[in-house]
């Protein structure tokens, strides 16, 4: 049976391209991460001392390259694969597809150029504003323009998948939306809703601000608009992961998805709740009444539900595989799982780390419990478990299974691939655990040198030196693991093509049906218009008053532009 590349050569090319760009940003971002780990801990500092902004140029690139470009380029690739494969049809309009691919690429290049310009004094350009680009700090206008072009490209990509589904629907009247397509569509609806915040922030405030068209903006308002987008985006990273966990992981374990209906419920809950929670990133912001914070916290806590349900469904699907493989006992079945298959082990280990990240996320979400850890090293400790492992490692594991389908080549360097997820797991255990602990005694995030003159940290147990060693050691293992992954990808890509009519050489791309299929769920779950309407309503209920409150303090007054340019700061 012919695999993806033989059936859909154009789409396979699109996926190969977006994966390649994604992995390029992964490589750059990983190098940035390594430099930071060495610099922060004082092990090796070669990017300048405290009077040089290079650390923050690295930090900005590490954040933006990994959580925007690595993740989203991978997402558009896997969504293209999912829709095409599952609906068994080509994307409707190749020109449209080429448009969004180009737009996203151009946007990513412009933003990257603005960031990298920060390394050189002779380039009149920089964007040392970190991933959150809080006003009144200003980046070069190219930074914002690039992001705008990139995001509008992703909007068109969503339209491309919707169009493909609409075409499919005309020929398949009365049929349920196939599960992967359902996940793609609900995720994109969530993305459209959540990106409104950052679009308004960038188009109406930051671009005019950076061009000098307006002299001031209200920094609390732009922050609030950022976080309107900023928490939804974490689910945008996570939804392709859930797509793989629900659809591919059960089969890799030798089982079948436990419940298709619950998977649908989970994605609907994310559509409904991922936006009206953003203020939980602003628990300790002045200017926002406590009642609004409490309301957003309540929504946030209920947003735990879809992830907790996912934990059950996905683990049960894996267990189904283990039982079919002869596994027994309460925990003994875990041993029968195919831990030697990196596609399985990567996703399973990613899921395990996500459970740990879930805990620290619950602490972050606890409005007043968060006081202690807000903006400490705890926070990057948390999100290196979530986006940094649940997402990154699942993407890598998924690649091991997908790459043969889109290249028509067998996975190469299998031994290296088999080790890679475990290397990541061990590295992240050290690094993330150390970061969490450091946060508890007050070591801050986002700083080049967390050593101070006037006081010493007082760890409840262990020492600062031991924590630093874990961060550096973990960082080295993670970097090695990343490059091991890239090595496997390159080796595979350079391999020889398996013939389409295969024989023994069949590339596995089968996804078995769920144990409990869509027919077991009410059709209303597929009513995307209804869920979108409710999602919009919830966002209005949650955000209208806080934004009105903040905006009433002035839209274009508050703070003057503060460009993050070396000349200005050292003047």
């Amino acid at each position, binding site marked *: 049976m012919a695999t993806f590349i033989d059936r859909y050569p154009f789409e396979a090319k699109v996926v190969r391209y977006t994966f390649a760009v994604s992995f390029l940003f992964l490589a750059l971002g990983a190098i940035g991460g390594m430099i930071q780990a060495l610099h922060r801990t004082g092990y090796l500092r070669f990017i300048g001392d405290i009077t040089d902004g290079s650390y923050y140029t690295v930090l900005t690139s590490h954040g933006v390259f990994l959580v925007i470009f690595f993740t989203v380029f991978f997402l558009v690739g896997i969504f293209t694969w999912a829709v095409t494969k599952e609906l068994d049809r080509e994307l409707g309009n190749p020109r449209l597809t080429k448009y969004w691919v180009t737009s996203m690429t151009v946007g990513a290049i412009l933003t990257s150029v603005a960031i990298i310009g920060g390394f050189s004094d002779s380039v009149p350009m920089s964007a040392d504003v970190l991933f959150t680009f809080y006003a009144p700090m200003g980046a070069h206008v190219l930074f914002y323009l690039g992001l705008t072009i990139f995001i509008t490209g992703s909007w068109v990509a969503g339209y491309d998948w919707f169009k493909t589904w609409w075409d499919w629907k005309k020929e398949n009247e009365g049929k349920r939306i196939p599960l992967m397509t359902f996940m793609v569509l609900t995720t994109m609806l969530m993305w459209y809703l959540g990106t409104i915040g950052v679009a308004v922030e960038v188009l109406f405030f930051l671009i005019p601000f950076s061009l000098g068209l307006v002299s001031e903006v209200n920094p609390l308002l732009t922050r609030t608009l950022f976080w309107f987008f900023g928490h939804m985006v974490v689910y945008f990273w996570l939804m392709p992961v859930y797509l793989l966990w629900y659809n591919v992981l059960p089969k890799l374990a*030798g089982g079948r998805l436990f419940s298709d209906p619950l998977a649908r419920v989970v994605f609907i809950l994310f559509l409904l709740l991922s936006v009206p929670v953003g203020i939980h990133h602003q628990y300790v912001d002045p200017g926002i009444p406590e009642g609004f914070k409490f309301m957003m916290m309540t929504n946030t806590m209920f947003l735990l539900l879809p992830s907790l349900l996912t*934990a059950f469904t996905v683990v049960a699907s894996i267990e189904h595989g283990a039982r079919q493989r002869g596994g027994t006992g309460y925990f003994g079945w875990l041993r029968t799982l*195919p831990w030697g298959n990196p596609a399985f082990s990567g996703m399973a280990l990613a899921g395990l780390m996500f*459970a740990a990240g879930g805990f620290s996320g619950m602490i972050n979400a606890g409005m007043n419990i968060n006081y202690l850890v807000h903006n400490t090293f705890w926070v990057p400790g948390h999100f290196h478990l979530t986006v940094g492992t649940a997402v990154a490692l699942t993407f890598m594991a998924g690649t091991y299974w997908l790459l043969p389908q889109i290249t028509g080549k067998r996975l190469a360097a299998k031994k290296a691939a088999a080790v890679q997820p475990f290397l990541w797991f061990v590295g992240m255990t050290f690094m993330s655990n150390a970061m969490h602990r450091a946060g508890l005694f007050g070591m801050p995030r986002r700083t080049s040198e967390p050593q101070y003159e006037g006081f010493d940290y007082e760890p409840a147990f262990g020492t600062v030196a031991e924590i630093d060693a874990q961060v550096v050691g973990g960082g080295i293992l993670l970097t090695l693991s990343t490059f091991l992954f890239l090595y496997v990808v390159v080796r595979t890509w350079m391999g020889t093509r398996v013939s389409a009519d295969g024989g023994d050489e069949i590339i596995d791309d089968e996804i078995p049906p769920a144990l409990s299929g869509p027919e077991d769920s009410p059709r209303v779950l597929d009513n995307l218009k209804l869920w979108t309407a409710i999602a919009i309503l919830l966002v209005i209920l949650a955000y209208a008053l806080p934004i009105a409150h903040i905006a009433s303090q002035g839209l274009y007054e508050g703070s003057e532009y503060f460009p993050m340019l070396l000349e200005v700061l050292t003047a």
Partner: protein
Amino acid sequence: MGTESRERRIDHDEFDPIGTLALIGLYFVILVVMWVLMWQVEFLDGGPTVVG
């Protein structure tokens, strides 16, 4: 990567994910214990405390 070695086929009605229930129950207990510990560290230890 067809490394499946299926010994038997189990359908929906004959499958009770008891292992999953055990694992997730364990997770539940860990979450509650850790939450309470965090509370302890934050509000019941000495030192300056925010009150408003």
